[in-house]
């Protein structure tokens, strides 16, 4: 994802919303996580969730700004985001892109292609607006 962020850095904001664990060891543990030493129980407190999120950021030197969904999971609930998902919100505050639910629908390549088209179209609109403003 960071490659995509860098590619569009001047034209889009990126924000990671850290939600409840998808594969904690006390629920649906994955062999791949065991192999990589990523073994956590599902957090029961915000401090626990923060601890894992910080570990994630440090371990991967994660560069995309990251915030945490509170323990009531309001963001996960509102965006149907578990276990992972991609969205784009337009400057008007409306949903512009809704990726498919993860894990199989989590598709950064599709997002990248969509962003390319969307941002080009948006730049075209901006240029048109500028010309019209100049004409006025």
């Amino acid at each position, binding site marked *: 994802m960071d490659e995509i962020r860098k590619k569009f850095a001047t*034209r889009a904001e990126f*924000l990671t*919303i850290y939600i409840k664990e998808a594969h904690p060891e006390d629920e649906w*543990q994955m062999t791949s996580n065991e192999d990589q030493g990523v073994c956590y129980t599902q957090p029961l407190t915000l401090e626990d969730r923060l601890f894992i999120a910080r570990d994630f950021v440090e371990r991967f030197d994660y560069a995309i700004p990251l915030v945490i969904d509170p323990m009531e999971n309001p963001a996960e609930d509102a965006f149907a985001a578990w276990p992972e998902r991609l969205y784009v919100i337009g400057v008007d505050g409306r*949903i512009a892109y809704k990726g498919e639910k993860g894990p199989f629908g989590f598709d950064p390549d599709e997002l990248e292609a969509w962003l390319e088209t969307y941002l080009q179209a948006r730049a075209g609109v901006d240029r048109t607006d500028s010309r019209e403003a100049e004409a006025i």
Partner: protein
Amino acid sequence: MIGKILGFVVALLILIAACAIFYIGPRNVIGILTYGRQARDGNLQVGDQAPPVTLVALDGATRHPLEEWVGTQPLVLVFGSFT
């Protein structure tokens, strides 16, 4: 004769199911059945107003409404967790 065919079909289906469970992994089969339904399509649609959620900063001390990031440029949201 029909009984034998039915028996063969049932045995074949059981064999296929067993192979599928072995391939996917018993733990993942249980996980899919138990937790898989948490993955939902959701009701949000393109064009809907983004839900007004408040999020916690990584320092744990401050909270920020999502709207803080909205408005200057399109905002890409990446939802996920470590595990």
